[in-house]
């Protein structure tokens, strides 16, 4: 970590975060002393442009806070809660003397402890509609049973493993509950480093103060996706980044990729990248090179792991790297603040940092054996739900490239749209669709009328409320399935429906899909005896593409609102088929 706890504490005193629009209320409840954590989180959040309001529950007060529906914690109404427990306080004396009990007693102790936690979760769900992250328990490296611990019948370690397993199961059942693998945090840095007996005895501190910044960094893995400050694309250099040496000088056979120790490091790094691509992270190339030399390696080198189809955009030329990067962002249609930039050359990195500070430029050493580990240490690619659309993303970009080529081959836009065979399937929200609907409201910036951000819990509430309609649209065409790419939320009043949210993913912009979806909403309203539809356009820095949508469609401005009278004829776009599921 770059900063010590003391530096964080002094920085936190001078944070100027009132200017930030993004706000996040974080509650921290714990069974041991975690002073300093909220200061670090505030600094980390401010670096992401988020104003963080922390709430620290009193020392070991978590039970009361959860069980009392009038508690200060519930009144604080956090967006996210971290419940941070430790095995010593959780087991009490049984931590040291678990073998004074019989196997059966140990088993029933675990059952009892888990049902306590389940009860806490029930109370949480009853009182709050937000996310709860619970830490699991460290399995200590020590057992009084020594080497035969692993032979013990439901022994000390197995008890804790059982607790962890039960927690894992709880998080699978409860949508808003996540388990942070604290045991893995301990194995990452080592129990002997994290647990300092002196700090423990002086003040029940169970994460040594010099590791508190590391622990806060782990918690940021949740805060980033909740606030939409996670990243979705890695832009890569080629020479000395994806392979060793310079292909233009060393030649196809001269670069290091595979056999040598250095070569193995590059292969390993590519495997790490591919594993992220498989989970939906977009990859792109930004390299100063002769196009043909570099493409030959990408296409033909036997030890290349990443191939052309893994890259959503490829810029290999002698242009300015910053310009290339901007073009990549435009090609893929993502913001620069979604991009992580990997380049071995310090000068290139400085160029990007200066031109685009919103891009995350990674400092990498000359030693390629460190690349994989640096990539693994980033917590910026986390999501709290992986949707089908995420996993298919790589494939979708290939289809997108094919679509663009097709568009170039056809002279008029109308003919292009006509020949795309677009199908729009309108679906009502359900449990399976909620994560994706929430994700789109959190991420969509361009074609978004109101840019209201909704967590899964919010979407679930709207979906269960008969005053609201939550719908989404799947868009297909001759090149493939774009997945769920449109969302609308309607607030139903007696005589009037108002559009709370209407958005379209950038994947399907410019194809008239929005008209198809809106027409369907209007028809639905008319069938329900509604006389008019009301909508709003809330301008942001990014939603210009949606600016004229309402007026082009035929809405009329009345005061602050846009109104559509349903006695007007509702026109359906001719080039697409709209179906209702």
């Amino acid at each position, binding site marked *: 970590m770059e900063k*010590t*706890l*003391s*530096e964080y*504490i*002094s920085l936190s*005193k001078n944070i100027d975060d009132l200017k930030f629009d993004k706000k996040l209320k974080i509650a921290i409840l714990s069974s041991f*002393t975690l*002073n*300093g954590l909220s200061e670090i989180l505030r600094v980390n959040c401010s670096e992401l442009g988020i104003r963080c309001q922390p709430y620290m529950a009193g020392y070991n007060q978590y039970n009361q806070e959860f069980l009392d529906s009038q508690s200060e914690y519930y009144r604080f109404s956090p967006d996210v809660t971290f419940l941070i427990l430790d095995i010593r306080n959780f087991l009490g004396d049984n931590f040291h003397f678990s073998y004074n009990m019989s196997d059966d007693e140990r088993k029933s102790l675990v059952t009892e402890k888990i049902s306590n936690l389940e009860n806490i979760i029930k109370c949480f769900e009853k009182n709050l509609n937000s996310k709860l992250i619970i830490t699991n328990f460290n399995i200590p490296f020590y057992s009084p049973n020594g080497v035969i611990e692993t032979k013990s019948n439901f022994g000390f370690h197995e008890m804790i493993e059982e607790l962890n397993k039960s927690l894992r199961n709880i998080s699978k059942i409860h949508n808003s509950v996540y388990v942070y693998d604290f045991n893995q945090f301990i194995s990452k840095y080592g129990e002997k480093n994290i647990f300092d*007996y*002196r*700090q423990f*005895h*002086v*003040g029940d*501190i169970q994460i*040594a*103060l*010099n590791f508190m910044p590391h622990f806060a960094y782990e918690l940021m893995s949740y805060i980033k996706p909740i606030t939409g400050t996670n990243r979705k694309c890695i832009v890569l250099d080629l020479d000395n980044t994806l392979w060793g040496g310079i292909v233009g000088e060393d030649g196809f056979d001269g670069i290091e990729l595979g056999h040598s120790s250095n070569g193995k490091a590059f292969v390993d790094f590519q495997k790490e990248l591919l594993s992220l691509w498989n989970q939906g992270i977009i990859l792109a190339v930004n390299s100063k090179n002769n196009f043909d030399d570099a493409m030959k390696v990408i296409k033909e080198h036997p030890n290349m792991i990443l191939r052309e189809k893994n890259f959503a955009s490829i810029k290999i030329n002698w242009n300015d790297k910053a310009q290339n990067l901007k073009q990549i962002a435009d090609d893929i249609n993502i913001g620069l603040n979604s991009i992580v930039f990997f380049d071995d050359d310090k000068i290139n990195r400085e160029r990007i940092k200066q031109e685009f500070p919103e891009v995350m430029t990674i400092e990498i050493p000359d030693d390629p054996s460190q690349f994989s580990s640096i990539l693994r240490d980033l917590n910026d690619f986390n999501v709290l739900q992986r949707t089908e659309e995420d996993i298919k993303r790589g494939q979708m970009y290939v289809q997108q490239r094919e679509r663009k080529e097709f568009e170039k081959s056809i002279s008029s836009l109308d003919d292009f749209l006509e020949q795309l065979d677009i199908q729009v399937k309108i679906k009502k929200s359900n449990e399976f669709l909620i994560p994706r609907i929430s994700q789109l409201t959190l991420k969509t910036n361009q074609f978004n009328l109101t840019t209201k951000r909704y967590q899964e819990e919010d979407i679930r509430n709207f979906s269960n409320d008969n005053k609201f309609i939550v719908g989404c649209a799947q868009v297909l065409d001759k090149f493939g399935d774009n997945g769920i790419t449109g969302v609308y939320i309607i607030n139903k009043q007696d005589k009037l429906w108002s559009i709370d949210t209407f958005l379209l993913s950038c994947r399907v912009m410019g194809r008239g899909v929005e008209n198809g979806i809106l027409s369907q909403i209007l028809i639905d309203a008319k069938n329900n005896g509604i006389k008019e539809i009301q909508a709003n356009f809330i301008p942001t820095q990014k939603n210009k593409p949606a600016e004229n949508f309402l007026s082009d469609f035929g809405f009329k401005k009345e005061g602050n609102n846009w109104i559509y009278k349903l006695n007007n004829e509702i026109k359906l776009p001719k080039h697409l088929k709209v179906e209702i599921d």
Partner: protein
Amino acid sequence: MIDDVNGIVAKVFSLTESEVSDQSSPETIETWDSFNGLVLVDELESHFKIKFTISEITDVKNVADIKRHLKNHNVS
């Protein structure tokens, strides 16, 4: 260098170095509570690459005490 101590104390308690003397203590420095005292220990340990014993930690009454204990760890 043991002369670094005042600077570290100043940094931890958000003071200027001139405000710190050997007599500075939890009584004279408002932000010097038990937790910040531990933060100070953490900073001193990583700066001087030493580990205090628990009695040294709990025994500190002022900056002079810190310097005395540091000398036991061969910091001069």
